[in-house]
């Protein structure tokens, strides 16, 4: 495993404070280099065959090769200033083998015939060395070789074709819109990712995939200096598996919600949202502090996505269930005995949760996963009952599956692939129901929009979530904005309190761009679809304090 060439994005001082605190991998390049097509498929196939043949002749019984080119363009601005423009490229090959029943992995950025040959030899040597400590040989679920295939994210505008100056103009106009509408500070960012992945395996697959993701986002802050108070509102965009067309701001993709709120499905109007955010941040400065107690919660998809991610997505990762993440992310309450019983009531009868890597525009969308398995959709929770997990090739037999679910992923050519969360989504309600109709039926409740503070225990029982916007519901009406709101619950209790789900017209994707897992830690991007959903009698606390 290689130590990465990390570049701190917070190089311009203030950057780290208002932008996600993370590190970017790869070498800085000019924006033009992001449009360079890279190696031809024929060249990649020839190189991959060297790895497959070398590993086999050295004793490997299985080999996969990932020749990866990972391109990023990240832009950071605050108020009238550009803070940073990072264009990076990372190119190399990762080779994974099974020898003597044990995994071995090696990676190199020397993508030459010699470099690849040595790398394959090292991978086999590592597998053999590790086999001494191996207790049970690896069992792989079978995969039909795909032959030579290609796939790319169906985008209409390649983000790297858009001049950097145009993107900067957009972000600075977002900032101006926020400042003109009462914001004291604003940071806006644009993240664009392109993974060019060539996968080959000894099963007879040569899969070329070109994957795009995009995330426009901002954070608007309003300060009342005389009161010594500040409040922020983040963008209601979602990171998407789309091209630059996500920023077209099509009226047809807007959803008009209660309290004048606009949310965005597959097309985002960043300037319009910044105007709303500035007004919301100011309104939050004088919002009423919540009275703690039990409330019926009406959760918008821009909020509920993270609750699904934390309380359903992570606990149903099979590697967590088995204990492989015990020292870091933790294990899971959703143990194999509960699944085997066949009647573990995860949620109410309304709750149907599916996993997939096939939903259009989602972050998980891809044709094949990083071990050459064709991606698909499968059920995790059916009519409230736990029915399945997320499993990859070397785990499928543990849960009596004949094939992998196709959710294996590595965040770079030099990271070893492992089980990662696919899209995990709540199916919309079958009966016609709008958000306004749902709110009409609530006597004492809170309507919550947007991703806020979130925390959950290491087995995914107890959680606490905040949000961006909170509206008090009294006798079927929204009566005003609330502040200092967080709800605490237990996963099973919470999902069993699910009382109503809006129909498919309200369905949209939420996403998270930098989900972390593993040691050394790897990131992945994942979407969660849902419609607005009602949960009855949830415990709400007041988070206001004096210091």
């Amino acid at each position, binding site marked *: 495993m290689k130590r990465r060439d990390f570049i701190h994005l917070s190089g311009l001082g203030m950057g780290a404070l208002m932008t996600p605190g993370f590190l970017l991998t790869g070498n800085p390049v000019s924006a033009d280099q992001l449009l360079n097509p890279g190696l031809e498929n024929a060249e990649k196939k020839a190189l991959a065959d060297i790895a497959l043949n070398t590993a086999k002749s050295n004793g490997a019984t299985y080999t996969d090769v990932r020749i990866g080119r990972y391109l990023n363009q990240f832009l950071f601005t605050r108020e009238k200033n550009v803070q940073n423009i990072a264009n990076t490229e990372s190119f190399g090959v990762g080779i994974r083998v099974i020898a003597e029943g044990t995994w071995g992995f090696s990676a190199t950025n020397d993508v030459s015939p010699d470099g690849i040959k040595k790398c394959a030899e090292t991978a086999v040597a590592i597998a053999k060395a590790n086999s001494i400590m191996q207790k049970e040989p690896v069992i792989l679920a079978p995969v039909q070789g795909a032959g030579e295939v290609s796939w790319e994210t169906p985008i209409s505008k390649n983000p790297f074709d858009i001049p950097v100056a145009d993107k900067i103009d957009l972000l600075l106009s977002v900032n101006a819109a926020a400042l003109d509408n009462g914001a004291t500070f604003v940071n806006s960012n644009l993240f664009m990712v392109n993974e060019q992945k060539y996968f080959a395996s000894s099963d007879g697959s040569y899969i070329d995939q070109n994957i795009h993701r995009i995330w426009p986002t901002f954070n608007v802050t309003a300060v009342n200096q005389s009161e010594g108070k500040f409040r922020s509102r983040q963008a209601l965009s979602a990171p998407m598996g789309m091209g630059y067309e996500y920023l077209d701001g099509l009226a047809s993709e807007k959803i008009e919600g209660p309290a004048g709120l606009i949310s965005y499905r597959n097309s985002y109007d960043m300037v319009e949202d910044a105007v709303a955010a500035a007004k919301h941040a100011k309104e939050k400065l004088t919002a009423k502090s919540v009275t703690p107690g039990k409330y019926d919660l009406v959760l918008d998809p821009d909020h509920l996505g993270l609750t699904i991610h934390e309380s359903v997505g992570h606990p149903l990762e099979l590697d967590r269930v088995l204990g492989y993440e015990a020292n870091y992310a933790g294990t899971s309450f959703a143990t194999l005995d509960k699944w085997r019983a066949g009647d573990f009531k995860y949620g109410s009868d309304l709750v149907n949760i599916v996993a997939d890597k096939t939903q259009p525009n989602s972050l998980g969308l891809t044709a094949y996963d990083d071990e050459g398995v064709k991606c698909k959709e499968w059920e995790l929770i059916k009519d409230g009952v736990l029915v399945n997990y997320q499993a990859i090739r070397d785990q499928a037999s543990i849960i009596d599956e004949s094939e992998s679910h196709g959710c294996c992923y590595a965040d770079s050519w030099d990271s070893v692939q492992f089980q990662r969360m696919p899209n995990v989504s709540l199916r919309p309600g079958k009966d016609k129901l709008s958000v306004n109709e749902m709110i009409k039926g609530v006597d004492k409740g809170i309507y919550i929009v947007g991703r806020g503070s979130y925390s959950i225990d290491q087995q995914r029982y107890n959680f606490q979530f905040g949000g961006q916007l909170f509206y008090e519901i009294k006798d079927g009406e929204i009566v005003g904005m609330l502040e200092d709101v967080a709800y605490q619950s237990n996963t099973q209790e919470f999902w069993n309190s699910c009382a109503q789900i809006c129909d498919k017209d309200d369905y949209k994707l939420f996403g998270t761009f930098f989900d972390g897992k593993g040691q050394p830690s790897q990131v992945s991007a994942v979407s969660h679809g849902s419609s607005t959903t009602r949960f009855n009698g949830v415990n709400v606390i007041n988070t206001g*304090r004096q210091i």
Partner: protein
Amino acid sequence: MAILSQEEAKKIIDKVLSYAKADETEVSIGGGRTGNIRYARNTVNTSGESNSITVAVTSVYGKKSGVATGNELDDAALKRIVEKAEEIAKLAPENPEYMPMLGPQDYPSTKNFSQNTADINPEYRAKAAMDSIEVSNTGNLTAAGYMEDFAGFTAVGNSRGRFGYNKNSSVDFSITVRTADGTGSGYAVRDFNDVNLLNAKNVTEIAAQKAQASGNAQAIEPGKYTVILEPTAANDLLRLLAFNMDARSADEGRSFLSKKGGGTRLGEKLFDERVNVYSDPMHPDLPGRPWNNEGLPSEKITWVENGAVKNMFYSRYWADKQGVDPVGRPTGIIFEGGNQSLADMIRNTQRGVLVTRFWYIRAVDPQTLLYTGLTRDGTFYIEDGQIKFPVKNFRFNESPVIMLNNIEAMGKPQRAGGNLIPPMKIRDFTFTSLSDAV
């Protein structure tokens, strides 16, 4: 790649600078060897080792800057990096907050490198993992652990005459031990510069004892409790306080250190008068780097003195704007403690909760520095001076600012997560709900 000597690094930097045409150029070279081993379910999952070297060149024209990096050290490769950085800089927008590069600096010679750590090899890592797993194998327990080590160097030089060189090393080891029936879990973690201070077996035994002692935890009502925080738990919250001491955000009115009506709370007494926090790159137990994130020489800085905020971070840009001296972020903080041992603290507690560590800590309100999170891997009820029984984990909602006004007692500082932190006894710590997680 071997660790370059100061002379070798200086030669390369001077060569790169001789190729440069920009108004200002800075070169940094970093490299070394890193290795890791990860295990779970009492068996090793992954292990690896790699050597790398990176040359990064920053070129600046006026207020436009560009960075390029490379991994090769021959003349042609170095020239390409310089050309690339200059090309990127010319295309970059102006950064109005750009500060000119620093001239020659007088950096201290810090002792953050250990040859013992540099000598770690795959056999050492495998033995550490096997020693750790062995503890679990003999006790009907399951171990999951991770060790990562690094030994390398950093050198920096620029066209204004700044030059610095530092060798550094680190080792991080963490271990979670669970009982076979899944009802008990224990954790221990250590970080050092010198691997000879690490004994993986002993650290695992601590985690194993906690796992066995924490089985079948009882539920007690959430509420306000006196807590005894082991150094790892105390560090989980105190590092967040230290991270948030930025002057610019305070001046801008968006920090817990913002003053009502404008300005910062610099100089105000915000904490118990026993609170004294400083950083010192020459501290033998927490050696720092010779220069800070602003490129200025690291020096001993007092952050909190007798409960009053004494210093905040000022970037060079913000310091210039405010007419004060810049203050960089330290490598780690040293929180002065007291004389009580953990055992003393437990003995002197009538009713309380002993906390091994916190988990999944997230900011709830930056205005008050309120955080939420949970206890994990060893939480025990104390009554009449004795540990009585393990308790179910709690969720907390607490601010380190409030916590540092509720100090009952402190022990001797120990290395925890890159800081020196004492065990602490805190009254009225706010637990808001129970968790069934083990």
